[in-house]
């Protein structure tokens, strides 16, 4: 019978759960750990390296041993601390890192072989023969490593994120946090009180101490109730503040649904809150630390405060015969509380020279061996042992900005240094103020100080509470015997390992941790780091603060990857941008492709077409033969106005723009300041002081940013105003010999060649609707781009298709667009790779040296103008039936496939239905004077080797007669 009277569990309700397939019962308010202990289950896990049987040692998030796989199937959650799992009906948990069972674990052989597995042994062996590492040694190591398993199935739950803003964030709802919240809340400040526990109150829930004449737990409950009634206070239980980031931003994970069998519909499993606060108070309490002795890791041996917590909060006696081993007065509280619960308790007080030198009990504690101060040893039969080596302030968050904690001799522990983090102060045990009175007082005082900064007056109202000193005499480990005394229980780091690290020169705390893996387990060394330091300090004869400090990085406790990702997963990873013709294209069965965030029609299959090539070939041929329509809305559009707009364009484009007439469009080449090509596009002059620039789809945002930079930072007195109009206009390209005839059916104006020549632009109307028309061509055909307000985009594509019916016009997608631009020799993404200059692209003459423009000067550096540099060329296979591959490299005939023979590469390859064979663009060294040469296009990844001829990149209509037609 382990359940005893009292505690904050609801005994009127029974919850069923199972562990390793065995069914048990517990009550609301239980954790998995308390419920298992109540069912006399002490053995809960196995250690990492030696597979030692382990039980729970703590009652909180610092737990290193009792970690289990929670739930099953796709919701299986490895390495979950039984001490923080809130019990729910139907809970299933399994032990991990054991085979075949928790009680009989074959891997426990490692424990017998432990002398061979000393710290760092793997750095000294497994080196011969070299080939054995990946094949033999490493697979064994990898299989043995790790604790729990993931299901390898998609996580079925959803996660959410949000932002909260407050004046004061209080981390931890123990006496200090509650006192701070109450003080600040009553003063009217916006307060967030976050606590990782599902029940606020912190240690008060685990103690029998009184506050203001009531039990501490009752005072906490009453305070929480009052805070809950304040509209300016937000209580966040089940919320772990994971870290402190810059400028008062804290991350907190709220476990919204982890206490349920599964989340309610529409609700997330967890929410990541980014809390923006003016001040923060860290009131996270303290974590008890053990004293190391031989075989101090058996199930049933736990921290004294945890033993007391299980009795007081959960009504669980871990054993009827109990011992307490302590070096401070807090241990005496455990003795008193357990005795009050009617248990048989023996005190071993290290301050009197009494020590525990060994324990026994393979799967659970059966006895301890005590060595009294007078040297006599005795064996005591107990099934539970509480150990207290003192308390370490939970200063983790305060050291997130790498501020070094300072040593406090009074409590023999590190406390946070003041100003470790701007805007954060520490209160209560987290600051080393260990009594209840000190917690209440420091909490209130820090709240008052924080509020004073904000101009708010707050008043402290401190109830009566104990103010007893800890009376601690440091004792870190028991010097006795040849056996192992555990420092880091999960990772199986013992006092001997620390000694070995010292012996081999791994003395600094960083080396110690890395060499022995001390503090690297899932508990992040919460109970072991300071102990490890203390052992090293003793070995080196230095003080602990001289030996090193221990600082903590986020997160405070491990955080699920899912909650950090939030809503952004699957199709919601990034938003989708739909083009104006999306609805129509979907109706046509178009195949879509991701282009940045856009979805564009890649091709539009017609009945009977079974391969993408059939569709694309048809789209290209029909466009060149008659007319084709393409949604080109995705190109960036930037409205540029102002009396200096022309001058501005001259600065940002390498070629000349000032001379562009109203009603005309010009191709523009934009360089980065380093002289490489940034982007290209066309800019139309719509009015005296009004231009519209188009960018490539990919660079719409960076170009706009760059233009704002030029306008505000470089030339702040130019009269230029910018705004993006990419989304405002639905824009369609209409190309092909019948393009004009097609458009003439729709537009209300004269667009004959005389009225609207090549490179003309202007405002028109389409059946009365305002529109813009640009006579520009990417395909090389007679072509226009027509833009209407986006709301008419759907109607426009339907009108174009309807008007095109008599010409058998096609709508083409990005593939056909790509084919036609390669046929025409226009550069696009694969050529605009950020590594290429205008000269590389065959556009060197466009860079005007008669004016200063971005990139002009640096484009003239010797390495960028060398005659043997890459130049854009056209490529065709000598044998037209052979296929080219983009990314294949040029080699001379007979040349070996070695870097020194590398002539360049094919950037873009398409099948030209017009020419009936594969064609390509490429960058070839000295390519501008190698037309007619025969080379090889070699793709070593597919073992293809094709003889090619270097040709002009303009495969179709090199004289440009069609587009002027």
């Amino acid at each position, binding site marked *: 019978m382990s359940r005893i009277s009292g505690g904050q569990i609801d005994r009127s309700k029974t919850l069923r759960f199972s562990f390793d397939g065995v069914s048990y019962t517990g009550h609301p308010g239980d954790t998995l750990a308390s419920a298992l202990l109540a069912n006399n289950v002490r053995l809960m896990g196995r250690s990492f390296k030696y597979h030692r049987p382990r039980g729970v040692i703590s009652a909180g998030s610092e737990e290193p041993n009792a970690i289990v796989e929670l739930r099953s199937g796709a*919701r299986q959650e490895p*390495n979950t601390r039984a001490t923080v799992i809130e019990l729910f009906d139907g809970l299933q948990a399994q032990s991990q890192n054991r085979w075949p069972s928790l009680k009989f674990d074959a891997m426990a052989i490692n424990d017998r072989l432990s*002398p061979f597995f000393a710290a760092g*042994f*793997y750095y*000294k*062996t*497994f*080196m*011969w023969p*070299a080939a054995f*590492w*990946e094949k033999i040694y490493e697979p064994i190591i990898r299989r043995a*490593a*790790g*604790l729990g*398993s*993931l*299901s*390898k199935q*998609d*996580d079925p739950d959803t996660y959410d994120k949000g932002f909260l803003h407050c004046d004061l964030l209080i981390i931890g709802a123990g006496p200090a946090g509650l006192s701070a919240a109450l003080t600040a809340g009553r003063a009217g400040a916006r307060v967030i009180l976050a606590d990782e526990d599902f029940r606020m109150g912190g240690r008060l829930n685990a103690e029998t101490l009184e506050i203001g004449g009531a039990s501490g737990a009752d005072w906490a409950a009453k305070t929480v109730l009052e805070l809950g009634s304040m509209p300016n206070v937000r209580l966040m239980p089940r919320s772990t503040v994971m*870290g402190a980031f810059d400028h008062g*931003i804290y991350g907190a994970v709220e476990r919204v649904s982890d206490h349920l069998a599964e989340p309610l519909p529409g609700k997330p499993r967890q929410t990541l809150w980014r809390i923006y606060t003016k001040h923060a108070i860290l009131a996270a309490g303290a974590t008890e630390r053990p004293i190391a002795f031989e075989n101090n890791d058996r199930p049933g041996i736990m921290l004294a405060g945890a033993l007391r917590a299980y009795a007081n909060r959960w009504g669980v006696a871990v054993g009827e015969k109990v011992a307490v081993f302590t070096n401070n007065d807090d241990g005496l509280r455990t003795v008193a509380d357990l005795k009050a619960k009617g248990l048989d308790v023996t005190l071993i007080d290290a301050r009197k020279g009494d020590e525990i030198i060994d324990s026994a009990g393979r799967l659970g504690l059966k006895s301890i061996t005590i060595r009294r101060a007078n040297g006599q040893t005795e064996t005591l039969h107990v099934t539970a042992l509480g150990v207290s080596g003192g308390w370490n302030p939970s200063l983790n968050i305060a050291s997130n900005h790498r501020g070094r904690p300072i040593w406090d001799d009074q409590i023999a522990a590190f406390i946070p240094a003041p100003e470790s983090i701007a805007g954060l102060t520490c209160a209560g045990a987290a600051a080393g103020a260990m009594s209840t009175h000190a917690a209440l007082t420091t909490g209130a005082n820090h709240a008052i100080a924080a509020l004073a900064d904000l101009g708010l007056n707050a008043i402290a109202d401190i109830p009566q509470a104990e103010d007893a000193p800890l009376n601690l005499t440091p004792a870190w480990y028991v010097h006795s015997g040849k056996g192992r005394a555990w420092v880091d229980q999960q990772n199986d780091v013992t006092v001997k390992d620390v000694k070995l690290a010292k012996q*081999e*020169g791994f003395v*600094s705390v*960083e*080396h110690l941790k890395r060499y022995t893996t001390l503090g690297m387990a899932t508990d*992040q060394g919460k109970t072991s780091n300071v102990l490890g330091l203390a052992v090293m300090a003793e070995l080196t004869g230095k003080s602990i603060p001289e030996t090193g400090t221990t600082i903590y*990085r*986020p*997160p405070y406790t*491990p955080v*699920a*990857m*899912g909650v*950090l*990702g939030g809503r952004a*997963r*699957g*199709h*919601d*990873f*990034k938003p*989708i941008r739909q083009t104006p013709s999306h609805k129509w294209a979907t109706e046509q069965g178009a195949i879509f492709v*991701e282009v940045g965030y856009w979805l564009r029609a890649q091709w539009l299959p017609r009945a009977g077409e079974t391969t993408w090539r059939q569709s694309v070939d048809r789209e290209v041929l029909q466009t060149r033969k008659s007319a084709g329509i393409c949604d080109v809305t995705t190109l960036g559009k930037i409205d540029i106005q102002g009396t200096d707009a022309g001058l501005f364009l001259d600065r940002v484009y390498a070629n000349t723009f000032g001379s562009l007439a109203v009603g005309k469009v010009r191709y523009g080449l934009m360089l980065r300041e*380093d002289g490489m090509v940034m982007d290209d596009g066309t800019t139309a002059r719509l009015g005296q002081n009004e231009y519209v620039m188009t960018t490539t789809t990919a660079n719409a945002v960076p170009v706009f940013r760059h233009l704002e930079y030029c306008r505000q930072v470089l030339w702040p007195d130019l009269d230029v105003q910018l705004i993006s109009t990419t989304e405002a206009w639905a824009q369609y390209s209409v190309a092909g010999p019948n393009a004009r005839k097609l458009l003439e059916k729709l537009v209300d104006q004269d667009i004959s060649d005389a009225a609207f020549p090549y490179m003309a632009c202007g405002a028109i109307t389409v059946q009365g609707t305002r529109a813009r028309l640009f006579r520009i061509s990417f395909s090389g055909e007679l072509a226009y781009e027509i833009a209407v307000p986006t709301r008419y985009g759907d109607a426009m594509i339907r009108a174009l298709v309807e008007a095109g019916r008599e010409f058998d016009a096609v709508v083409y997608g990005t593939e056909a667009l790509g084919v036609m631009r390669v046929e025409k020799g226009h550069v696009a993404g694969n050529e605009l790779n950020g590594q290429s200059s205008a000269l590389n692209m065959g556009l060197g003459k466009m860079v005007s040296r008669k004016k200063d423009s971005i990139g002009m000067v640096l484009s003239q*550096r*010797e*390495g960028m*103008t060398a005659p043997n540099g890459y130049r854009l060329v056209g490529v065709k296979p000598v044998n037209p039936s052979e296929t080219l591959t*983009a*990314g*294949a*490299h040029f080699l001379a005939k007979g040349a070996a496939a070695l870097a020194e023979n590398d002539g360049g590469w094919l*950037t873009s*390859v398409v099948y030209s239905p017009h020419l009936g064979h594969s064609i390509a663009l490429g960058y070839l060294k000295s390519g501008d004077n190698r037309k007619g040469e025969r080379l090889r296009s070699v793709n*070593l*990844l597919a073992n293809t080797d094709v003889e090619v001829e270097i040709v002009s990149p303009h495969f179709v209509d090199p004289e440009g007669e069609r587009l002027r037609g």
Partner: protein
Amino acid sequence: MKAQSFRLRPILTQDGTWEYHMRYSGFRVIAEALTGHKGWKPAWRDAAPQAAYDYIIVGGGGHGLATAYYLAKEFKQARIAVVEKGWIGGGNVGRNTTIVRSNYLLDGNQPFYEFSMKLWEGLEQDFNYNAMVSQRGIINLFHTDGQRDAYTRRGNAMIMHGADAELLNKEQVRKMYPYLNFDNARFPIKGALMQRRGGTVRHDAVAWGYARGADQRGVDIIQNCEVLGMRIENGRVLGVETSRGFIGAKKVGVAVAGSSSKVMAGAGMRLPMESHVLQAFVSEGLKPLIDGVMTYGAGHFYVSQSDKAGLVVGGDIDGYNTYAQRGNLPVVEDVAEGGMSLMPMIGRARLLRMWGGIMDMSMDGSPIIDKTHIAGLYFNGGWCYGGFKATPASGFVFAHLLAKDTPHSTATAYRFDRFAKGLMIDEKGQGAQPNLH
């Protein structure tokens, strides 16, 4: 004692005496286990500075230690010291994502990284330390035709430079990692570039292995010795001013990664680089999930699983100049978003630790290993966040430059003047903006 024959081997020290150094082996581990581990010696001496050396390497990170090691071992130089402001291996070699690969594109880079890969392949036997060089393969996923074309170009360049590369299609990727998001993705996986010889290395062990190897060859490893300035007269460096006093040197080699600008400012130089923080993350230990290394092509996320079973995860740099070894949440979230999009099964894996390292982000994303205009002063830096994989070759070629005053054949392009000459080595094509590389 018979055991001596495999335990110790004699080394000729710089002053001409023979010293016995401990050789690590499985036999040795067993022998020590049976005798209570009494025989293990410090892996390296904690040396005090002498008045002067022939070579001072500033920076006891991976690159600095490797430089000292190769100077002594390959180039037979002596009177070498490594000075380190903290503890060795505490910089980026101790805080990275442990990936090694030679999947570079450009002529200036690929021979160097392939040289590095070959050094990794023999490293453990060379320095007698198990650094767990593990060639389990790296795949770079692609999601668009443009990415495929770029990887085809890259893969061919790799092979032409003597490295290995394969282009995998979607089904081949699915076979390797069936739990990736193939069917419900915002950016579907189309395939991957794979380098089978890529993999991971136990990063701390690299520093320790080089330190031990260098120490055995007489190099003084001087910890807790911060370089405060350079003593330069008549255009020649005479030594370094340190927190432990002046130390004279004929040649000074600087290999301090994120602190490059600070240290070289001591010699009056401005560098083409900025310091940025790169965060990385490790999960709780999990039973084997991911065999090799994987990079996501549609987000900032890459992952491998260490031999200690944690998932080691990285993403993009935070993006602002900083010398603080810590980052902020937006990048953490960005990485997790990428991870959840690529492999939705990791939702329930928990991140255990996050940390930040300071990267010397150069203006073209590639390093500089060169002499300076000051005689006797040499510089090695600008590694961006690719420094770890370069460690062996970086040490080797820097030692070559220090010892011979000419660049090693694989590092001829890593010059200071490449920016003036317009010969940038810009793998990503981002231009002179360090945070984009």
